[in-house]
């Protein structure tokens, strides 16, 4: 039987007066050891909030979850030690070099001083950044910054990795590198990976199972094939639109029908 590494129970996060904004609403989910799980959803669906809740960055309004057996409400520090996070739009300390930044992150995660320099060197080599290790991050391209952030998420070699929109800001070459890395981490390093994205091909290619979230609610769960079959569509894209709703094709050019608009 597969070991459950992330167990989510009625996890909810409400905002606003009287909790009228339901960012995450009674989420129930299990992610297994060694699995690559994709949480799919349109912008504002609640993906990032879910990741923040599971990483103990924010607290749930209701419900709870365990990550590698640790309760997110009672064992924050332990949860943080077993997870690595690549946030959607994280800020780097731009006035630090890549080496200094990774050293800082390693120290925050209590990576032993005996192994930290070697690990930083290895990660910088892996991401082909070793020749730029002493350059300030402010001079890095977006793809290079993303590589540094992934290296930071891996610095303490956690068993569970959260990638929030890992390729959304990258060019095709950098995106391919990130995809291959995630595959490698899952296949060869046995990591459990939780990916949030709205880029369907990424999720389709990398994930063993996916969940579709919309307006805070999990509305579909299964393998890509299962979800396509459930909606009786041919592709994941069609299935996603069918589940979450979208603009009908005939409505797309309605604005041109207005008098004089085409002149």
């Amino acid at each position, binding site marked *: 039987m597969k070991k459950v590494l992330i167990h989510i129970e009625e996890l909810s996060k409400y*905002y606003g007066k009287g909790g009228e904004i339901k960012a995450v609403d009674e989420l129930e989910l299990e992610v297994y050891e060694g699995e690559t799980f994709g949480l799919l959803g349109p912008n504002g669906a609640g993906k990032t909030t879910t990741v923040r809740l599971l990483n103990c*960055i924010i607290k749930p309004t209701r419900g709870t979850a365990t990550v590698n057996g640790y309760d997110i409400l009672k064992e924050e520090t332990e949860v943080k030690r077993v997870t690595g996070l690549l946030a959607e*739009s*994280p*800020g780097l*300390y731009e006035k*630090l070099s890549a080496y200094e930044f990774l050293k*800082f*992150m390693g*120290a925050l995660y209590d990576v032993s001083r005996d192994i930290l320099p070697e690990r930083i060197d290895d990660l910088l080599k892996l991401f082909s950044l070793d020749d730029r290790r002493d350059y300030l991050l402010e001079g890095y391209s977006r793809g290079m910054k993303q590589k540094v952030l992934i290296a930071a998420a891996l610095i303490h070699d956690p068993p569970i990795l959260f990638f929030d929109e890992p390729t959304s800001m990258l060019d095709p070459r950098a995106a391919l590198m990130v995809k291959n890395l995630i595959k490698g981490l899952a296949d060869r390093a046995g990591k459990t990976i939780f990916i949030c994205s709205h880029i369907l091909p990424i999720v389709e290619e990398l994930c063993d199972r996916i969940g579709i979230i919309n307006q805070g609610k999990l509305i579909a769960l299964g393998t890509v094939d299962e979800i396509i079959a459930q909606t009786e569509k041919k592709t994941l894209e069609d299935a996603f639109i069918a589940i979450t709703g979208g603009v009908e094709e005939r409505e797309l050019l309605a604005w041109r029908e207005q008098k004089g608009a085409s002149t």
Partner: protein
Amino acid sequence: MPVPKWFVVARNEYLIRTSKIRKIRPYFPFLVIGLLTIYVAFITPAFVNLFIDEFIAFFLSQAAVAVVEIILFLIFFYFIIIPISNTLKEVQTEQQEIVLAAPIKPSDILLGEFLGVMPFYAIAAIVIIGLFTAVLNPLGLDMVQIGMIIIIFIVTFFSALWIGTVIAAILRTKFGKTARGKDIGKALSLIIALPAIGLMYAIIGGGLLEALADPGTSGMVEAILGLLPSSWGAEVIISFASNPGNITAVGFETLTRFGGLVAFFVATLWLGAKAANRAYSLEPTTFISSRAKPDGVFYKTIKYLGGGGSFGTLLVSTFKGYSRRLQNLSYIAYVVGLLVLVTVFFMQPDYPEDATIMGMFLFPILAAFVASDVTLRGKDTLFIYRKTPSGVGRFVKARLVQGWIVVVPITGAITAVSTILIPQTTFISLLTNTGIMMLFVAANVAFALGLFLLNPAFSDKSGNFIFNIFIVPNVWLGIFIISILVFDLPLLDSLFYVMIPLSWLLGIVFLYLGKRKLSRIE
């Protein structure tokens, strides 16, 4: 054993702050310590020797307690304000997510940030402490008294810095999550300096120090400032100065004041640590987005003034883009505030032309701040106009008119009020003064607009921004000095025959050159 987390954050903060001097980073502390040692051991004693009699007389005078209280209050206030102002200038919360995802307590982040910046504030503290101890030394204070004075300064400075760090962290979290919040932060960063400037002007030009020689006035200042912890140390320092080498003579007073100061420091540390959870949080603080209302009479009038057609729409859009940014409004409030402070503390009824001279330098600063918005929104905004047919010309025209609508009425109102305040002002002189100043500032809007297009500043922290803001008023300072000293012209003649024609000439030339540059910016 793992390194304490607060130390990791402090080291990180120190590395960030010294990134510009990375090459000399290993020697930097030794260099600073060496220079400070020379300053404390040689420079301050030599400086104090020059004025030794005046210093001794001062410390034994009636005004000493109040003056030292004011000095300590000013330093206390600045040590609180500087970290807040620096944070508000550019509110950044983006790094918080990766730090909060790590196993670290918010109180460790706060302590680390405080300790990371402390060495730089310690330099300022040592400069001040060095001077004070050098001044007090000739009075014959013993080592215990000198030591306690040093501790008083350290505790006062660092409790202020800690308060500033905690408030800055809370405000960063409060304002950093929305564009509106960041805008409020930038606006506040400028405005919060005004009270301290006011106090400084009161000392320099308002005769505050002279007034403190009066027992009634100094007693009142002491009573008010005495409530603040910065004053408790001041009272101990002055009591030591009055009883050099005899700490027992003021034992009880020393114990209560000094003890109170230390207790205050401990309390602020404890409260700050308690507030840390609120200071580092990614929980959203608001879900209210700013919403535009339908255009009212004001915008309809502006559109009408712009001819009502597409240029009118462009003018209204430019105006909205400008006035909905609180940072822009804070620039106006700041310059107007400065003008009021200058008028209150420096203007003398016997010299009515002072107001005109002040206006001649401060109104161009206002014009420069207002015009700066033209490039501060970034190159991409400028490219929008470059893309549209005849966009560049219409954009510059809209910006010019928008600048006039903002700056000219403010200048007119302030000049009129300050002219009315002058005794025996005639209606004609009121109209002349106001009209001349409005003409002058209108030309300065064109000049500043052209300058900002010619030498674009895409950030308010850039060198170009500071250079342009500096150049606009100082051009007039130079021309004013030449016309008064070289050509010996009276003030109004200088303004009317030299400054106004020249300002319009410069305005037209710079606007033309700026418009040409805008078409070529890449």
